[in-house]
């Protein structure tokens, strides 16, 4: 009869919705609503609603595929790390700030860095990184003009709510992206050269997103646009704590993008990969290729709170409790500090032990949390910073194929969350020219192979096929494909 209730945040996109989880005696969880949580006012998107699924696979510690206790796993990890050559450590931002700091300490002991934050996303000059941080969502509600380079309905559904409030407050909303949006006053399919025509000013907000597969050229173009017009720019990101990881890693150098890391692994330059709640197989558009690359590693060590494809193939898995039970802090997309009500710290304890095994000091939660506060005073003081970068040059990638399959990075697909987006979007013109049959399917051919998909007719630009689902024909976020009715 006794239930345990955890106040926590949704580990989806970076909005960081408040909610609470009910855990009943048999370990099953259900999600429940706060009515006045400051970020989301008690509301959740369709991904948030499915959180119980996300928590249905808690991880278990493993050494060489065999279930093992935490200490055994830590020791196995330590012995592998001690003898490893070049080590790459990756944390995409899916755990608490405190765990992230602990992971960074280990990196220091090992003489390396944690690849994390914005640097693992697009290849952008480091002076731009602070400007890819988010802005308070309440400010979006008060903007006069909002330009969307994302599809909030598909990618960040809870942002729809903020945009609707903004619209009620009198904002003029333009969708400059890929699809006609119901909430927008104007739907304009613009090329970067036409962005000037948007007539933005300092009361305007540009909303885009940034993730491991963002076209960095386009990110530069948007930063240029913000710089030229004085408009504010807000970037949405996947993972609950990518913002926190980013801010904590701001003074670190020598970081690589995730695709770069994968390239080096493929080439054989990196032989040891140490992951903190980050699964490249889920993250990369091309899962097969990624899994194949990871198999070339000598050491694959994973700290994880849930089972995912990478824990299946890792040499060592150090298991932690589910995210909602953790004691710890997150920073959401707008820079708000949020705290779990859970009190468990097995992840930090494990990393502390690992640190000691590696010959360094151990650490505990309070100490790490104190460190976080120090850091945050420093970075939060930087709010409302002026642009510190100049106009950037970039060479846009040319797509020469007839059709481009564009992957709308969906911040939950990294977590293998079920979604019903088993279709692609294309427009009526294409339906006619491809002689598609209603209720039929399209076949997409890329260099990787071909697959059949259902499709939905939307007002999207000619030649563009959108997907909110990772498709196995995709080679990146934009893939040139041949399309045929079938």
């Amino acid at each position: 009869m006794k239930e345990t209730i955890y106040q926590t945040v949704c580990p989806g996109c970076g909005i960081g919705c408040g909610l609470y989880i009910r855990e009943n005696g048999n370990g099953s969880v259900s999600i429940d609503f706060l009515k006045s949580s400051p970020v989301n006012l008690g509301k959740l998107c369709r991904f948030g609603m499915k959180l119980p699924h996300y928590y249905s696979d808690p991880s278990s510690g493993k050494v060489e595929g065999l279930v093992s206790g935490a200490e055994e796993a830590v020791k196995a990890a330590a012995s592998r790390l001690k003898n490893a050559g070049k080590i790459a450590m990756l944390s995409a931002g899916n755990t608490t700030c405190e765990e992230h700091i602990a992971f960074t300490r280990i990196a220091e002991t090992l003489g390396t860095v944690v690849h994390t934050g914005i640097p693992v996303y697009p290849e952008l000059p480091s002076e731009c990184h602070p400007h890819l941080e988010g802005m308070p969502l309440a400010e979006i509600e008060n903007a006069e003009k909002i330009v969307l380079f994302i599809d909030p309905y598909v990618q960040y559904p809870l942002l729809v709510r903020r945009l609707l409030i903004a619209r009620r407050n009198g904002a003029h909303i333009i969708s400059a992206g890929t699809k006609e949006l119901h909430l927008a006053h104007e739907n304009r399919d613009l090329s970067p050269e036409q962005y000037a025509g948007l007539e933005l000013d300092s009361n305007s907000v540009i909303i885009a997103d940034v993730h491991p597969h963002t076209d960095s050229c386009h990110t530069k173009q948007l930063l240029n646009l913000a710089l030229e017009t004085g408009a504010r720019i807000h970037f949405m990101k996947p993972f609950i704590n990518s913002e926190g990881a980013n801010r904590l890693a701001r003074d670190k150098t020598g970081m690589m993008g995730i695709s770069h890391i994968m390239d080096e692994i493929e080439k054989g330059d990196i032989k040891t990969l140490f992951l903190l709640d980050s699964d490249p197989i889920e993250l990369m558009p091309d899962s097969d290729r990624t899994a194949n690359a990871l198999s070339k590693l000598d050491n694959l060590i994973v700290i994880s709170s849930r089972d995912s494809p990478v824990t299946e193939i890792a040499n060592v898995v150090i298991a932690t409790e589910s995210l909602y039970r953790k004691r710890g802090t997150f920073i959401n997309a707008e820079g708000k500090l949020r705290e779990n009500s859970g009190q468990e710290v097995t992840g930090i304890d494990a990393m502390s032990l690992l640190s000691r095994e590696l010959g360094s000091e151990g650490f505990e939660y309070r100490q790490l949390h104190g460190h976080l506060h120090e850091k945050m005073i420093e970075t939060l003081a930087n709010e409302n910073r002026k642009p510190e970068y100049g106009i950037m040059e970039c060479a846009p990638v040319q797509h020469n194929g007839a059709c481009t399959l564009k992957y709308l990075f969906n911040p939950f697909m990294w977590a293998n969350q079920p979604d019903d987006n088993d279709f692609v979007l294309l427009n009526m013109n294409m339906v006619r020219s491809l002689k598609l049959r209603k209720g039929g399917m399209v076949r997409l051919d890329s260099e990787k192979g071909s697959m059949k998909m259902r499709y939905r007719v939307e007002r999207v630009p000619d030649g563009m096929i959108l997907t909110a689902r990772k498709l196995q024909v995709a080679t990146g976020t934009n893939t040139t494909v041949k399309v045929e009715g079938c």
Partner: protein
Amino acid sequence: MVEIGDKLLGYATNPDVRNRGASGGLVTAVLAAALEKGMVEGVVVLKRIDEYEAIPVITDDVQEVLASGGSMHAVPVNLAKYAVGRKIAMPGKPCDVRGVIEQAKRNGVELEDTYIVGLNCGGAMHPVVTREMLIRMYEIDPEDVVGEEIEKGKLIFKTKDGEEKAISIDELEEAGYGRRENCRYCTIKIPTNADLACGNWGVIGELAGSATFCEVMNEKGKRLLDNAIEAGFIEVQPADEKSIAIREKVNKTMLKLGDEWKGRLLTEIPDQERLAYYIEQFADCIDCGACREVCPVCTCGEDSKCTMFHSLADNYKMSMYHMVRLLHLSDSCIGCGQCSDICPVDIPVTTIFRRFADPAQKKRDYSPGMDLQRPPFLELMLK
């Protein structure tokens, strides 16, 4: 021994409970006694998070029950879903009780195992709206509020500085604050569908503020009250004619006001504009399914007709999901407002449901959640 139909005035014997509870702590004490004496395995209590937020929690700890209580007009949760599959007692607004009864018709709840102490309800406020109202109308920082009550048609907030500020509810509601829309035109104010119907309406004279008016509605209500008296948790005395008359008068006034609000809030949309209105209202739906999740009437699991045969791939002008839900629930929608509260894109789901449900339920003379008569779709009244 009390009898079914008795109208009583009562209060908790424990002075602490009596003082803390809004009206003599009767409800808290009755629930605690039920748990203490093993009538139920648990009690649903609202665990206070702050002035505007409380989480329904099921507890088997009598002390925790006794420590709960107090009015929370800004916590509009529906408790019906928390009763599913458990042998519990709970306090309940009329809409909570209606939810439980509708669940019982769908085998979601074993009514015999669920004791509900009903509470009079003039309506609830949404916490977010309340915060905004405090800033704009009361000019009080919501975080400074330590207490709230309703007296003589005015909503009073107390701050930590010991100040009180009162504004008439009419004025607040004219300005768009105050009670949720569906509460304003709700037609059940006294929970006569519960086992006990409790509230402070009709408590006058020296007992005002320190006793609860309680009507014994059925056999379960009698058991609850007898148990609490026997356990020494409460004391009761018969209510006099005057008390009874005042309670009825308050109820009538509230219902009359409700009718007026209904006329204002559910104004007829011209025939030729209606479809466009519904299409527009549902157009921003992000397909989260939360309205279904919180609905206290719906008993479906994860797969159901509204979800299984609805696909984002369909290019429809209105989503199949909403159409199927309207169809499946318009005969038994209780108008509790949960779906509107939860909707992340502010679709007025409850208002839309009422537009379909009101005429349908009126035509069939069916009031869901008020008795065990089954709704038309479940019964398909033949001949």
